[in-house]
């Protein structure tokens, strides 16, 4: 932690006394902040408010308000044939993707913590693990689409060598959602590992050494001492994973378009469909209001966890 607040009169800029100077400085401060603040009001505060406000209005096919609707949009949304299915899909996907990616991230963190910088192949390992992190989700989805494709994909080729195969993994409801979960783990688990490694670095090395002497196999020390120390970072990563999972839309767009049989229709893609394919702007407005609440809560939560961890505002 740094001490950053001013300490005593000596640290103030010379000549701060004098009312005119103070007033001039205030004017200058507000002038500098005016543009970014106006922008935040126009592009963050206003859309947040109008997302909630518009969900209460009946909207026509181009999205213009035609009259007050109360909770009518929400009733219409809940009555949509796909709504409960999409909710179930999203919850299943988010829970599985979050659980598996955080578990994988923890495993990777344990493995990577032992890799030395100069070890043979360390560079290759880092590139292999983190290339999914820096590529667009669209590109990642394409890679998976290609390697799972029936007849030409390598997975099918391997399975055929084992005597089965010919399977269209994206063509069946259950396996298609599982593929999306696996893709999420592949893309994000290494990224989450970075945060866990940063958390592990905060654990004093002499504590680690002492534990290693006490308990060479390290399992119970890991569980009883290190895991609790890592808990805030784990919580942060879990919230982040949930947020990313709820926001998932790119692989749905490229790989399944919500199919087969709507089994991979996730909430963000559904919102896009409601608005831009079905032109059902009323239900879309209601869904937006619900999504805004969930997403903002999650991202607010991640900030609170992050701040508690040691970072400071």
């Amino acid at each position, binding site marked *: 932690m740094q001490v950053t607040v001013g300490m005593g009169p000596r640290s103030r800029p010379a000549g701060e006394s004098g009312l005119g100077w103070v007033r001039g400085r205030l004017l200058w401060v507000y002038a500098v902040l005016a543009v970014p603040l106006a922008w935040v009001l126009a592009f963050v505060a206003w859309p947040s408010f109008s997302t909630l406000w518009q969900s209460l209005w009946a909207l026509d096919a181009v999205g213009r308000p035609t009259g007050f609707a109360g909770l009518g949009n929400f009733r219409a949304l809940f009555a949509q044939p796909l709504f409960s299915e999409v909710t179930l899909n999203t919850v299943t996907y988010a829970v599985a993707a979050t659980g598996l990616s955080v578990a994988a991230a923890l495993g990777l963190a344990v493995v990577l913590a032992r890799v030395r910088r100069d070890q043979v192949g360390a560079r290759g390992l880092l590139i292999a693990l983190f290339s999914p992190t820096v590529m667009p989700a669209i590109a990642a989805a394409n890679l998976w689409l290609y390697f799972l494709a029936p007849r030409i994909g*390598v997975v099918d080729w391997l399975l055929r060598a084992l005597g089965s195969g010919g399977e269209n993994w994206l063509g069946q409801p259950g396996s298609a959602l599982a593929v999306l979960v696996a893709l999420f783990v592949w893309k994000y688990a290494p990224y989450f590992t970075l945060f866990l490694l940063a958390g592990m670095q905060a654990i004093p090395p002499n504590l680690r050494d002492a534990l290693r002497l006490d308990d060479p196999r390290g399992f119970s020390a890991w569980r009883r001492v290190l895991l609790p120390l890592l808990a805030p970072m784990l919580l942060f990563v879990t919230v982040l994973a949930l947020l990313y999972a709820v926001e998932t839309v790119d692989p749905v767009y490229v790989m399944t378009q919500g199919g087969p049989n709507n089994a991979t229709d996730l909430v963000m893609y559904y919102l896009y469909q409601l608005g831009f394919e079905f032109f059902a702007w009323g239900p879309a407005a209601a869904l937006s209001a619900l999504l805004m609440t969930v997403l903002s809560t999650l991202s607010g939560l991640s900030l609170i966890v992050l701040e508690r961890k040691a970072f400071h505002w």
Partner: protein
Amino acid sequence: MALAMVGAVWAFPTAWVLFATFWHAGHFTVANLSETWAAAPFGRYALNTAVIVGGLFVVQAVFGAVAGFVLARYPFPGKGVVTALFLLQVVVPVYAVLIQEYRIVEGLHLLNTKVGIMLPYAVSGIAVLTYRQAFRAVPRELEEAARLDGYGTFGVFRHVYLPRALPATLAFAVVSVTYHWTDFLWPLMVTDSDSARPIAVGLAMLAQASEAGLQWRVLAAATAVVVVPVLALFAAFHRRILAALTTGLDW
């Protein structure tokens, strides 16, 4: 051994596509690549992406540095509210208010433009908080010494504070660039022609078309066009990029 396994598993999907793109009939080839390059305006997409991502970074950094400087060094009435507004920008992701952002951009007649894609992201709360943190760490004595040398507020900002925020700027650049060049749903909604489309959207369009036509080689090669430059960049700077991804949140 375990490490090699993990690495191999993770590298596999990417390696397979690169192999399928560059290896045909027993030898190395760039035929797939050049064929795909001609199938979609990748140059256009790349240029659009560069303008959007570069422009956003510059605008976010300028607003972030100026607002961060004021928040770090000057007490003024309403500071708490101002900080809270910048935090609000971090807490409410663009994806949470997507349709309203679309309405605003539509109302400004900026659909299908690069400016329209950039507009909702132009001020970054993360940039403001990152710079605030970096500027707070600058010793006040340096500022006083510079003022005694006759520098005004702008001179102090320019010659004392900004140079010391260079590591923070680089870390923020990595976070901002990785986020925006991979962004998809928002630019998809805003664009309906190739004139402003960034590469992630173009790639998705091409993927859908080639998937429907079962042109798997085109799909593989198009993905390779996007992935190879990133892999090269990442291979060259991987330590700095990885470090930046976590310190970018250190505010």
